[in-house]
């Protein structure tokens, strides 16, 4: 039997082409649009085969097909039509613009809904919108595309972008949206390459997100990965190479820093009136400057950005195969990313290999099964940034009079030379490393107490971080009776990560040194599963359409992480490379080990009712009941209930509208309103409501002469069994409209979101044993407008569309928890800056609190507002000086196509926030040239800031005042891309259906007045500490060359 089948199959395979050739006809024709204009690049395909072509510039095509074949004509933005050949040799076709865009179906969580019926604020981003993007991070892909979303990014390789939907609702850092990929909850979408995504739905209002209850308080991002389409198998390869570099040069050079320091220290005289520090600057240069062989004329004038940063290449390759038929579909994709950051060397690298395997199969008319699977292998190495003593801070502060290299020991500073000599003589305390490369030792400044060269900081620690993640869902859809679909879906995540680090004694200078060896190895293992069962039932009678959904969800997350580390003056049996592992520790090395498996779980029931009457009136109600495990809430307080209601009125479907308004001009107008309640459970963890005995949490030594601690135990805190999650309530009012034959689209939303029950550390009398206890309270408002405007049209062969979005955000802390005080964080205290970020009633969250700079008096001394009138400028005079979060964001997207050429421009901007650099230090240290250019000096009497000698110390009020505050506003053209699709008649000869090549300039043009490295990445800390620029990894300019082939 089986043999017969095989033989028959082979015969058929041979016979079919012969038969097809025998009956072929050549069909020609022209494809036009409604206006009679020829359409180029229309796909003309023989249905059910791989045979196809595209129309030429005049809309003409020619294809050889069997005389009984069916031709399919398709073109983006137009309706797809099919024509039976029936022996004809000429078939002309007319494609209409797709007036049914509004019939697009969007994912709304446990179901789908027609876009025209939406009653909530849901924005959908389609694969077409994500096409050709350079970013490899799904979250970053949304930048500038959608109103109401702020994308926080850091440019370091492997650093994932974070999203904020409709503002900042909490005093905690747990304000990321809920991410759901193919029904699976994930903590980050960094692993998803945008090319694998079919659609991203952003549920912005509470009514839409309410179906996710206590985890949806900060919005929901639903992602659907691609699936195969009916028809032939499609193979797509795309690859690109990216040259990236950082080209801004905002720091002072040799001449400038000498001038600045001369000003800073030139006017101080000793008791006898002699200028003292002028001599100091001169003397420092006299002492330490020398003819360096590696510099022109021997004059050291080192640009430390050049020293630390170099242009690098990054690569990405992607291959996908997809297809399907009535029985099922498949989509597989492999994607490889290697991003080598711009820091010299290979210490900032991100590698990622991902595979996506999606399939569905119809077992019976009433049963469909399928799976979505994502496998990711990643590794990353990074350098320190955005912090005191970090490599980027050192890059900014290192003076340009210090060379990158010492080529001989004689050039070394006394401190390093002493160590070098001791190493040579074998008398050093430790086996110190002196960092170097083939050009010489990395020089440290002799002029100040810097920790050291950024290159040495880069090399001080060797570490790797990596792992793999497997995310997937398997599902079954049952359709036992008409209108009813029951879905059972099992989602799972398996992850494993390993990190290693090793550092050995080194000597960079007096402040930059380490006397011990440190080694650590950490392994993390996690497994998560969710089982969700829900049923959707569609019912219609007359003009009434009802969809009801009920379901339940159980989720469980497990982790089992092991961390080991050891540190000490001599810990390993050998320090050769092949011994640098925990296995080779000496038996007496002090080891720290931690491991405690963790589990968390949640249970939910939910339901939704949608009612549509006559396509005019839409109502929707959601309800979810959520319960969380005892690590978050006590058993008697674990359930929460989250309702929402929304309604839409499609005015354009009213007869009075149709009768009185030109429906070609006004195609669609819908008003909608919604209200809902969500929670934010992520603020609770670790049994915060309990007070238990922390065993062995403290130690004391009863023996004065001998090491050996006795361990003590005490309650860990004050109990508050009433703790609960943050709750948001949001009201949304929206309008969707389409005009001029759907060419012009306009959407506007107003939202008002209030989040209460924030978690506060409330002050309690310290006599209770603790100074604070956790309590819920307070209220944060996020309110704003979102506008989206789009235009799409075609002029002859020229297709184009332009869209823009603009969002405003008013963020205000309306109240704090009773008994709590404004929370002040002195994040820059290690720099001695006075600046604080404050969470206080009446202001935006974590605003910048500093001094108000009033200008200078007649002596050039800075003046500040003295709020309490005590003639002393102190902490009591600090006040609001700036928002740390943007008050508006906007984006613009332009797409054009003509004769095979395509052009894309994406831009994004934000503003209304302020940035205060905390990079100034006293002494011989570099900084932004802006400070020199704007100082009031003899050469520059119009300077707006005091002469450097008036503001030497970083703990003086000036540096924490509006005098040192800059607008964070910027507009950045994220991408300008020009592509060309080689005519199919050429590529067909190489069996390529489509071949596109393109070049792109990403992040190349930025408009900003911010004088630091980069306004976009200057301050992306998620909570307090935003707005302070410590020296962040800046966004790189990128030149990208890419190719995409479809077979």
């Amino acid at each position, binding site marked *: 039997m089986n043999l017969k089948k095989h033989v028959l199959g082979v015969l058929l395979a041979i016979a079919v082409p012969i038969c097809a050739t025998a009956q072929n006809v050549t069909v020609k024709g022209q494809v036009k649009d409604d206006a009679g204009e020829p359409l180029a690049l229309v796909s003309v395909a023989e249905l059910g085969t791989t045979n196809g072509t595209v129309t030429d510039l005049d809309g003409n095509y020619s294809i050889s097909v069997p005389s009984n074949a069916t031709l399919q004509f398709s073109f983006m933005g137009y309706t797809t039509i099919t024509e039976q050949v029936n022996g004809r040799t000429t078939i002309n076709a007319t494609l209409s613009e797709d007036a049914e865009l509004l019939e697009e179906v969007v994912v709304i969580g446990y179901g789908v809904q027609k876009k025209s019926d939406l009653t909530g604020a849901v924005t959908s981003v389609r694969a077409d919108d994500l096409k050709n993007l350079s970013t490899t991070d799904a979250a970053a892909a949304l930048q500038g595309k959608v109103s109401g979303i702020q994308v926080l990014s850091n440019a370091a390789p492997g650093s994932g972008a974070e999203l904020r939907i409709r503002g900042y609702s909490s005093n905690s850092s747990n304000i990321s949206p809920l991410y759901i990929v193919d029904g699976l909850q994930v903590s980050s979408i960094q692993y998803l390459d945008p090319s694998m995504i079919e659609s991203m739905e952003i549920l912005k209002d509470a009514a839409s997100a309410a179906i996710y209850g206590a985890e949806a308080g900060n919005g929901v991002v639903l992602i659907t990965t691609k699936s195969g389409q009916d028809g032939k198998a499609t193979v797509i390869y795309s690859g690109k190479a990216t040259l990236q570099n950082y080209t801004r040069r905002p720091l002072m050079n040799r001449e400038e820093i000498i001038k600045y320091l001369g000003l800073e220290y030139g006017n101080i005289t000793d008791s006898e009136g002699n200028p003292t520090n002028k001599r100091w600057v001169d003397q420092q240069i006299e002492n330490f400057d020398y003819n360096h062989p590696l510099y022109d004329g021997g004059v050291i004038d080192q640009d430390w950005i050049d020293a630390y940063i170099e242009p690098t290449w990054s690569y990405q390759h992607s291959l996908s195969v997809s297809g399907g038929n009535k029985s099922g579909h498949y989509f597989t994709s492999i994607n490889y990313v290697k991003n080598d950051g711009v820091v010299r060397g290979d210490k900032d690298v991100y590698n990622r290999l991902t595979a996506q395997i999606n399939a569905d199969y119809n077992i019976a008319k009433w049963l469909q099964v399928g799976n979505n699977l994502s496998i990711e292998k990643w590794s990353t190495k990074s350098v320190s940034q955005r912090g005191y003593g970090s490599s980027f801070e050192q890059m900014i502060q290192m003076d340009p009079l210090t060379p990158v290299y010492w080529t001989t020991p004689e050039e070394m500073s006394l401190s390093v030379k002493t160590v070098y000599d001791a190493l040579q003589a074998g008398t050093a305390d430790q086996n110190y490393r002196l960092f170097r490369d083939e050009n010489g030792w990395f020089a440290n400044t002799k002029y100040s107490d810097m920790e050291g060269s950024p290159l040495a900081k880069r090399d001080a620690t060797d570490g790797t971080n990596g792992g793999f993640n497997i995310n997937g869902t398997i599902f079954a859809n049952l359709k036992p009776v008409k209108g009813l679909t029951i879905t059972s879906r099992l989602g799972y995540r398996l992850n494993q990560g390993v990190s290693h680090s090793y550092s050995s004694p080194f000597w960079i200078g007096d402040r930059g040194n380490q006397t011990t060896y440190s080694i650590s190895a950490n392994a993390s293992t996690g497994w998560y599963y969710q089982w969700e069962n829900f049923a959707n039932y569609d019912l219609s009678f007359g003009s009434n359409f009802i969809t009801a959904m009920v379901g339940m969800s159980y989720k469980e997350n497990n982790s089992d992480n092991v961390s080991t580390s050891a540190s000490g003056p001599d810990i390993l049996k050998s320090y050769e490379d092949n011994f640098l592992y925990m296995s080779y520790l000496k038996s007496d090395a002090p080891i720290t080990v931690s491991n405690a498996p963790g589990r968390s779980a949640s249970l939910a029931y939910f339901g939704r009712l949608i009612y549509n009457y006559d396509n005019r009136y839409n109502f929707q109600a959601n309800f979810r009941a959520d319960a969380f495990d005892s690590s978050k809430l006590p058993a008697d307080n674990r359930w929460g209930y989250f309702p929402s209601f929304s309604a839409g009125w499609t005015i354009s479907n009213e007869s009075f509208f149709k009768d009185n308004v030109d429906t070609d001009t006004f195609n669609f107008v819908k008003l909608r309103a919604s209200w809902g309640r969500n929670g934010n459970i992520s603020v609770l963890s670790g049994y915060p409501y309990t007070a238990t005995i922390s065993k062995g949490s403290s130690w004391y030594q009863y023996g*004065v002469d001998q090491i050996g601690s006795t361990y003590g135990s*005490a309650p860990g805190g004050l109990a508050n069994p009433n703790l609960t999650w943050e709750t948001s309530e949001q009201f949304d009012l929206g309008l969707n409209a389409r005009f001029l034959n759907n060419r012009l689209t306009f959407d506007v939303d107003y939202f008002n979101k209030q989040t209460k029950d924030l978690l506060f550390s409330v002050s309690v009398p310290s006599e209770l044993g603790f100074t604070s206890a956790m309590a819920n309270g307070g209220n944060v408002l996020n309110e704003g407008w979102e506008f989206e405007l789009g235009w799409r049209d075609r002029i002859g062969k020229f297709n184009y569309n332009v869209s823009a979005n603009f969002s405003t955000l008013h963020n205000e802390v309306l109240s704090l928890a009773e008994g709590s005080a404004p929370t002040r964080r002195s994040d820059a205290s290690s720099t001695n800056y006075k600046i604080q970020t404050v969470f206080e009633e009446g202001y935006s969250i974590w605003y910048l609190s500093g001094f108000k700079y009033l200008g200078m008096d007649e002596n050039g001394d800075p003046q500040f507002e003295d709020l309490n009138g005590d003639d002393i400028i102190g902490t009591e005079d600090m006040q609001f000086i700036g928002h740390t979060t943007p008050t508006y964001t906007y984006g613009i997207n332009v797409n054009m196509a003509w004769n095979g050429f395509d052009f894309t421009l994406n831009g994004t901007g934000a503003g209304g926030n302020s940035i205060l650099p905390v990079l100034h230090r006293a002494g011989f240290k570099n900084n932004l040239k802006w400070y020199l250019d704007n100082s009031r000096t003899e050469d520059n009497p119009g300077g707006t800031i005091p002469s450097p000698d008036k503001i030497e110390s970083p703990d003086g009020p000036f540096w924490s005042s509006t005098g040192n505050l800059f607008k964070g506003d910027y507009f950045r053209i994220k991408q300008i891309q020009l592509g060309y699709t080689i005519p199919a008649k050429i590529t067909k000869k190489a069996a390529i259906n489509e071949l596109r090549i393109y070049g792109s300039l990403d992040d190349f043009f930025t408009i900003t007045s911010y004088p630091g490295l980069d306004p976009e990445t200057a301050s992306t800390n998620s909570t307090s500490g935003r707005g302070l620029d410590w020296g962040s990894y800046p966004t790189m300019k990128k030149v990208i060359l890419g190719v995409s082939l479809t077979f």
Partner: protein
Amino acid sequence: MKKILFPIVLGCAFVAVSCEDKLDIPQKGTVSTLEYYASDADAKEALTDMYANFVQNVAGTEGIDNPEQVIINYAADDILAAGGHINDHDGFRGFDEFDYDEANGTLKAAYDRYTGAIYHANLVISNFSTENRKGAAPKFESEYTKKCVEEARVMRAYLHMMLAILWNQPAIIDRLLEPDEFPVQAESQKQVLDWVIAECDKAINSGYLLKRDGKTDKDATARMTVGFAQFVAGKAAMFNNDPATARKYLEPLVNNTADYDLVESSEYWTNFHVAGDGNCEKIFEPNYIYDPNADFWGNTFRSRWMVADVFCWRTDHLASMPAVCPAAGWNGGAIQEDFAKKFLEHDGNSPRRRACFLTGDEWLYEMEWNSKVNFGTMDEMEADSARGISLADGIYSHAQYFEWKHMSYAKVPKILAGDKAYPSDNIPAVMGGASNQKNFNCARLAEALLLYAEACVGSGDAAKGLAALNRVQTRSGSGKISSELTFEAVMEEKQYEMWFENCRFPDIVRWINTGKLNLNDVVATYHKIHENLPTVYDKFYTQGAPKHELYVTYSKADYQEFDAKHMYLPFPRDARTANHFKNVLGWASLNDSSEEPAE
């Protein structure tokens, strides 16, 4: 059939997974409070926790300082806040220059640490005795738990004494407060101090309190003992203006020569360094030794991380790093110039004076610099560019005297140790040097002797008092021995002996209260100090002189005049608003303020 069956199976599954008990996940690494405090082992852990809390908080670091050291010592008239320039170390200047207020963070930290430490003592007392809210019997009681309770009692008394000395009228927290309870402020300082004395008396007479077992019993200095209880009761009595009661408790202590004695004159310096931890002079010092097996931050806080930087000279203003310095020095505190001169005149080259500070010449030429001509000829050293104050800013708040009493020695200097070997104070292998393993000083015999001497002035025990004073004077090496017991002699000696040891400022307040000092004179002294703040320079660098020569210029501090209200601290704003405590003296004007707490 199947298409009906599958949904039924699924429906059953709905029910099956809705087991809410899957949400009950026990917490790891903890024990319920309901089951704890029920054995000797639990009592030991609770007592250990009390000491751990004390050494890590009251005796530990907060940012770059120890709050107790700041709020008590910088207000004295013989110590100046110092640093790189006039705006440096504001936190210290606030107390030096009396411009702190109730929102001051260090003030709050000190208060919270004292009250927090009381809570940890009360965990022992209330859980192992009937001294709790309802007078309930403890879950467990034994001879051992009774010992623990008495130790905790003395600790609690000591902390209350410090609160009363500094804030005048704190609450007496005689048991564990419940979360819904507020502390009740005492009616007077006297009420608190009377209670402190009674508590110490109770512990001393309980028979359960540990006694030091000879002068070599170092471990007894790391915990509460009869000797320390006597010290606390005596000191509290002196602050209660009750010399007779003070004599009652201090006399057995100063006479207990079997267990306590002053160290040799040449060893005076060891009292402030690791070499002297647990020596015969110590009565109580919370113990700390770096323990690689203990948690990092515990080690960090106990080693008073960065306080070591603060108590080191301003090294980035110097031509090279002196060998004694453990890490980059920030020079947070300086010996006041007039006092240094007086001290030098009184003590000359006594080991005591040299343990406290160096003169300019000693500093330049007897100290080990990071120089190729270290200990070279005088000509070489005078022209040596690797010593002296190289930065033309000079060293602010500093005259030509260089204190190092509390410096964390990276290498014990020969000036003090001679050729004898002693351990260093810091732990460079762990914290890059900015650390100190020296036990935190709380009580040593010299203070007890001077308190006793003072208590004897004008009483029938004058001869005993003179003997106590003479013991201190003899040991100092100054050669100045009083032949008669006078208040002035004790006051003078105490300023030298106990300089920078939490004594001077509270004594000034006490002596104003008892009429021994005139408030206006004190105000004038502070005024003069703040009008003449020195900065020391080196002509070798500032003027290109051929050899080192230190010189001083003066400027005015940015200060508030000392006022009667500064005799006591205001309650931290949080405490005042939460507890409705009333401040005394000039701070009473805050009492009706309803402002929200700041932090």
